C-alpha cells in the first residue's frame, strides 16, 4: 500500500505515454534530443568513474593506512555532501571562468594569450558533479571496508598478495553492494540535475525536460520526455541488481577484528596526505572559503543587513522544519517497505519496491508535476463529493498545502531512505529472524526487538541523508511550496541565476552549515557500528 502511494504519480506519468504528441518528438529528435542523450550518457560515465575512483580510493586510504591527518580526513572527506551541486556549480564558475580571479591572475602572470581550459563545458560539469557526489560512495565504501573482518584479509596476505592486490581482488569485490549502491545514488542525482548543468551550458535530458516544458510550453511533451528517464532509471536499477549479484553479503560473527591499519612511511605518507588535502580542498574548502568571503562582503553593507534581519531567520526555520518532517516520514515509510519486502519475497513485493524507489530517477520537476496532478485530482474529488453530500465547499485541502510538497519529497527520496534501511537490513541474518520466530515471537515483535536495534543505524543514516537532500532540493520545491513557504534553496538559486553571487552566498552558506549537522551525525553513526566500537 505504501508502494501504491508512492507509485501513483509515476504511473500517471507513464499513462501519458499512451498519448504521445508525435510532432514534438520528431522535432526534438532532429534537433536536440541526440545531443541531450549523448551528453547525459557522458555525464553518467564521467560521474561514475570519478565517484567510484575517489570514493573507494579515499575510503581505502583512510581505512587501511595511517598517515599525517588520516584521522581528520576520515570524517572530513564526507563534508562535501553538505554542498548542493548547484552551489558548487556557481562557485566554480565564478572562480574559474574567463572573468574570474584564477584566470585573471594567470593572465597577469603569463600574458593574455595563454590558452586555458573552459570551465563552461561538459568537462566542467562532470568535474563539479564528481567532486560533490563522491561522498555517497565514500561513506558507503568506508562503512563496508570497516565491517570486513580481518581474517579473510590476513588469509589473503598469508597467501602472498600485497596489500594493493588484496584491495583489488578481495576487499573491493566484497564491498560491491555498498559501492554499487553509492554509485547508483550519485548517478541518479547527476542525471536528474538541471540547475547545475545549466551553469555549464551542458544540455542533458533533465535540462531538456525543463526546456520543453518552459521554453516550448508543452507540458505533455515534457512529461513524455521524462518517461525516457524511466527507461534510463530502469536500466541503471537493473544494472545495479546485476552488479550486486545474487550472493549474500553478511559475515557471520560480528565481533571480529578490523583490517589492520598500516603506518605509511616516506614519500607514500606525504603522497597520501597530499591527495586527501587536494580532494578536500577542492571539494569543500574552496567553495566554503568563497561563500564565506562573499557573505562577509555582502554583510558589510548596512542596508543589506537590515533587510536580511527580517527575512533570513524565517527561511532557516522553514527549511529546517520541512527537511526534518520529510526525513522522518520517508524513513518510516521505507521501513515499512523494506520489512514488507523481507517478509514477502514474492515477485509482487519486489516489483512494488522497484517502482516505489523509481522516484529518485525522475527530475524533481517532473515528480512535482505528477504530484500536483494527483493532489489536484484528490482535492477536486473531495470537493465535489463534499459538496454533493454535505453542501459545503472545503476549498483546497492538499493543493497549495505542505502535504503536497512532502508527498513529492517522499516520492523523490524514497530510494535514499530505502537503500540505507535495506542495506542495513541485509546484514541481519535470516538465522536471527528464524530463531526469534521459533521462540514464538510475532512478526511485529521480531521487528521491534530484533530488527529495529540492528537497523536503527541504517534508519538514522537514511534520515540524515534525506534531510540533507531535501534541504538541497530545488525544482519540486519551486513548483509545490505553499504560499510564503520559500526555502533557502529557492532563494539561493534565484540569486545565483541573476549572478548576484554575494547575495546568494549567505543562503548557500547556511545550507552548507546546517547540512553539516546530519553529515556529522552520519559520521558518529558510522563510527558506532564498527565492530569493536561501542555498540
Amino acid at each position, binding site marked *: 500500500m505504501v508502494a501504491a502511494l508512492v507509485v501513483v504519480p509515476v504511473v500517471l506519468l507513464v499513462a501519458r505515454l499512451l498519448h504521445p504528441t508525435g510532432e514534438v518528438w520528431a522535432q526534438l529528435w532532429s534537433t536536440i534530443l541526440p545531443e541531450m542523450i549523448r551528453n547525459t550518457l557522458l555525464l553518467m560515465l564521467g560521474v561514475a568513474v570519478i565517484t567510484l575512483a575517489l570514493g573507494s580510493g579515499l575510503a581505502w586510504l583512510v581505512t587501511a593506512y595511517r598517515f599525517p591527518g588520516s584521522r581528520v580526513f576520515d570524517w572530513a572527506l564526507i563534508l562535501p555532501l553538505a554542498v548542493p551541486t548547484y552551489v558548487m556549480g556557481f562557485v566554480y564558475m565564478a572562480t574559474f571562468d574567463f572573468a574570474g580571479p584564477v584566470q*585573471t591572475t594567470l593572465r597577469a602572470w603569463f600574458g593574455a594569450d595563454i590558452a586555458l581550459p573552459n570551465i563552461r563545458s561538459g568537462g566542467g560539469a562532470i568535474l563539479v558533479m564528481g567532486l560533490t557526489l563522491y561522498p555517497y560512495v565514500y561513506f558507503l565504501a568506508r562503512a563496508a571496508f570497516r565491517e570486513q573482518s580481518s581474517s579473510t584479509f590476513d588469509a589473503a596476505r598469508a597467501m602472498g598478495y600485497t596489500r594493493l592486490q588484496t584491495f583489488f581482488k578481495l576487499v573491493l569485490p566484497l564491498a560491491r553492494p555498498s559501492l554499487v549502491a553509492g554509485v547508483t545514488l550519485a548517478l541518479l542525482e547527476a542525471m536528474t540535475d538541471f540547475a547545475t548543468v545549466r551553469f555549464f551550458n551542458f544540455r542533458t535530458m533533465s*535540462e531538456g525536460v525543463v526546456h520543453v516544458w*518552459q521554453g516550448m510550453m508543452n507540458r505533455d511533451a515534457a512529461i513524455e520526455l521524462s518517461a525516457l528517464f524511466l527507461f534510463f532509471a530502469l536500466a541503471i536499477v537493473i544494472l545495479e541488481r546485476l552488479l550486486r549479484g545474487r550472493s549474500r553479503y553478511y559475515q557471520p560473527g560480528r565481533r571480529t577484528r578490523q583490517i589492520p591499519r598500516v603506518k605509511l612511511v616516506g614519500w607514500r605518507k606525504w603522497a597520501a596526505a597530499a591527495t586527501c588535502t587536494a580532494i578536500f580542498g577542492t571539494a569543500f574548502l574552496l567553495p566554503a572559503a568563497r561563500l564565506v568571503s562573499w557573505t562577509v562582503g555582502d554583510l558589510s553593507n548596512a542596508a543589506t543587513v537590515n*533587510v536580511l534581519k527580517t527575512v533570513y531567520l524565517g527561511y532557516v526555520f522553514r527549511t529546517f522544519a520541512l527537511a526534518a518532517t520529510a526525513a522522518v516520514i520517508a524513513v518510516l515509510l521505507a521501513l515499512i517497505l523494506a520489512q514488507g519486502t523481507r517478509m514477502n519475497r514474492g515477485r509482487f513485493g519486489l516489483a512494488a519496491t522497484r517502482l516505489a524507489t523509481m522516484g529518485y530517477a525522475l527530475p524533481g520537476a517532473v515528480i512535482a508535476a505528477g504530484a500536483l496532478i494527483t493532489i489536484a485530482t484528490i482535492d477536486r474529488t473531495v470537493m465535489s463529493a463534499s459538496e454533493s453530500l454535505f453542501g459545503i465547499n472545503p*476549498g483546497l*485541502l492538499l493543493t497549495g*498545502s505542505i502535504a503536497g510538497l512532502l508527498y513529492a519529497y517522499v516520492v523523490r527520496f524514497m530510494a535514499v531512505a530505502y537503500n540505507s534501511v535495506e542495506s542495513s537490513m541485509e546484514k541481519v541474518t535470516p538465522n536471527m529472524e528464524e530463531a526469534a520466530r521459533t521462540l514464538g515471537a510475532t512478526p511485529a515483535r521480531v521487528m521491534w526487538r530484533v530488527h529495529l536495534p540492528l537497523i536503527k543505524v541504517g534508519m538514522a543514516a537514511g534520515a540524515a541523508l534525506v534531510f540533507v537532500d531535501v534541504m538541497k532540493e530545488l525544482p519540486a520545491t519551486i513548483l509545490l511550496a505553499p*504560499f510564503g513557504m520559500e526555502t533557502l534553496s529557492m532563494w539561493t538559486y534565484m540569486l545565483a541565476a*541573476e549572478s548576484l553571487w554575494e547575495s546568494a552566498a549567505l543562503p548557500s552558506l547556511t545550507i552548507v552549515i546546517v547540512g553539516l549537522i546530519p553529515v556529522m551525525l552520519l559520521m558518529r553513526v558510522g563510527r558506532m557500528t564498527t565492530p569493536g566500537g561501542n555498540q
Partner: protein
Amino acid sequence: MAYLRLASRYRAASLAVFLTVACSGAADSPVVNIYSTRHYGAMEPMYAGFTTETGIEVRVSHGNMHALLERLRAEGEQTVADAFFAVDAGGLWLAANDGLLQSVESAVLEQNIPENLRDPENRFFALSQRVRSIAYMPGRVDPSEISTYEALTDGKWRGRLCLRPSTNVYTQSLVASLIAAHGEARAEEIVRGWVANEPEYIDSDTRILETIAAGGCDAGITNHYYLGRLLKANPDFPVKMLWANQDGRGVHRNVSGIGVTAAAAHRENAIKLIEWLSGPVGQAGDDSGLPGSNLEFPVNPDVDPHPIIAGFGPWTADPMPLAEYGRYQADAVRLMERAGYR
C-alpha cells in the same frame, strides 16, 4: 498500520490549519497577495511605503515564471494570489491568454500608463521597461559597425561575441521580436549568422559584461540595467552600451508588468496597489520606486529615469505590441533549436 494513522492525522492537521488560516484571514487587516517572478531589487521598502499610505499589507510569493503559471492553473478558482507580477511581457500574455487574469477599468491607470504599454483588453499593465541592446568594449570595437542586431552576423565578429543561451526568456523574447519584424525565414537566417560566429554562451548578463571587460569577447547582447548595476558599483566600468537599430525599427524593449488574477479575493486592494505602483511615488527613478530600484526605465511619462541610465542617452523602441512576445515565444525556441543556437 502506522502510516494510515499518520496519513489521517495529516489530513486532520491540514484541515485544522486551513480553518485557522481561513478564519484569521477574515479578521486580519486588509491584505493583497502577489505571485511574483521578480526577485531582485529591494521591493520591501517600497511595499512598506504602500502599506504606510493605504494600510494594506502586501504579501509576496516568489517563483520562476512557468512554475507560477502552472500553480495558478492548478489552483484555479481557489487561488490565493490576487495579482501576478512577471518580468517578461511573454509571461503576462500567457497568463492572460489562459484566462488567469481579469480585465481592469481604471482611469488612473489609463492616465499613468501609455496605451502601448497596456494590454488592449486591460488584463495586464507594464510597470517598468528594460531594453536588450548591444554592449561593447570601446577600445576594441567601433560602435558604428555593430549598430544593429543583424550586423552581428557579419563574419568579422567570429569568436568575439558573448551571447545568452536560448534557455533564457530574454533571448527568447528578442528572437520573437525578430520573427515579428522579419518573418520566420529571415529571422532564422539571422540566428544562424550569430551561430556561425561561434559565440561564447554565458547564462548571465552580468557575466557577459564582465567577460567583455576582461577581454574574453568584444561585444554581446544584454539588458541595460545589468550594465547600470555594474556602473553603480564601479563608475569606471569600461563597457559601453549602444541602442540597436535606432535607424530602423528601434531597439528591443521588454517590460515588467502586473495583472489582477481572475479569481482574486482582494480585487480592490490589488487595483489600488497597481495604481500606486504606476503613480509618481511607485514609479520613482531612484531606489524608492519600482523601476528605479532595479535601474529600469519607468512607464509613467511624467517620471524621470535614474541618472545612471539616463546617461545612456534617449532611445526609440521597436513598436512591437506586448501581445506578440508571448505569441511567438514557442516559435522562437524551436527556431533557435533548428539554427543550432545553444
